């Protein structure tokens, strides 16, 4: 018999690390929509970050494992609307990205007509950066380079 509460569940689900960027958690990303009882099962509602993100299924599995660790049965449901945006990444998440050499997306700029925003270098802070490729090593990043320190870096594309 477990004594875990929904608050305990919310805590362990929020602490599940992202499989591709393990220094940010699901809570940091803002992808946990809801945690509810559904009979004897905990129903966790997640929203995917990018439609084709291969991490989505791994995340669902890790969430079930985390809740199972509390002695509860869990089910994951995916909801698309309202669509996730990079604006939902928390301050802690943005800082964790920057601290790990990834330029976070700029906030409040989600639009379908793409503005030309220049991220500053996550290593030296210089704003003298240039885009190498619009598409990077994962579905959510672009590849940039710093002209001041010469280092390449990933930039999470605003969405």
């Amino acid at each position, binding site marked *: 018999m477990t004594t875990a509460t929904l608050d305990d569940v919310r805590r362990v689900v929020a602490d599940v690390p992202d499989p591709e960027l393990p220094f940010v958690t699901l809570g940091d990303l803002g992808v946990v929509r809801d945690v509810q009882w559904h009979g004897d099962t905990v129903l966790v509602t997640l929203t*995917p970050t*990018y*439609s*084709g*993100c*291969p991490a989505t299924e791994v995340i669902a599995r890790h969430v079930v494992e985390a809740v199972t660790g509390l002695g509860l049965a869990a089910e994951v449901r995916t*909801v*698309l*609307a*309202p*669509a*996730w*945006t990079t604006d939902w990444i928390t301050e802690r998440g943005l800082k964790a990205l920057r601290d790990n050499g990834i330029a976070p997306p700029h906030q409040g700029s*989600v639009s*379908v*007509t*793409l503005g030309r925003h220049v991220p500053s270098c996550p290593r030296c802070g210089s704003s003298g950066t240039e885009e*190498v*490729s*619009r*598409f*990077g*090593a994962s*579905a959510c990043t672009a*590849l940039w380079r710093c002209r001041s320190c010469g280092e390449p870096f990933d930039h999470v*594309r605003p*969405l």
Partner: protein
Amino acid sequence: MITRTDLSLATYCLRLGDDALVMSHRFGEWVTYAPQIEEDVALANIGLDLLGQARALLTRSGELAAGDGPAATEDDLAYWRDERAFTNVHLVEQPRGDFADVTVRLLWFAAYQHALYAALTDHPDPTLGGVAAKAVKEVAYHLDHATQWVLRLGDGTAESHRRAQDAVAAVAPYVDELFTDDELVTDLADAGLAVLPSSLRAGVQSVVTAVLLQATLTPVTPTWHARGGRAGVHSESMGPMLAVMQHLARSHPGASW
């Protein structure tokens, strides 16, 4: 009880999903063939976005067509339908071609998808509306990527200009089918459940024409139009493509990673 509207909406989701799925497969074919490694990555990522759209749309199509019965899954629909059951337009099934071909094809397709998804964002079906709201922002990146490359190729060297202009002519016969209405979509649009393809034509054409002109390329009026994709009648290249796409699932049923 499955209503006629549910079945029509299932077919509508299938059409949009098949377009995305087949285009996604063609983009996957580019990996290791693009002119530079960044483009291998870019084309694969664009294909991945399209695959994400396709998965949600095919899943929804299966649910709508099943009513309370067991639904066909995304895998059932992707791997176990034969050519005549695929409802994608001919544009997306065309063979890889050269880099100018894929770039110009993407310019048209991304401009079309961008207008389509923007108009579907408020769709009453939560899955269709949800896919559209998410995809419209991803497709904006595809459109921007295609635009940057068309500008570079068209306004680049004599050779890149020639090949980009050839690509503009090659894709021209496949454009009209994107904007062709039929009874199913007209009925759905009357009920506020679909976007009439013809209503997107002028806007998309002006987006693409502006890019072509800026790239010093000349828009081409085709002398014939591809037809029949929505009804399952495809071009010669569709069968071999499906054979590759479906081979693993059919030869090793139930295979998993």
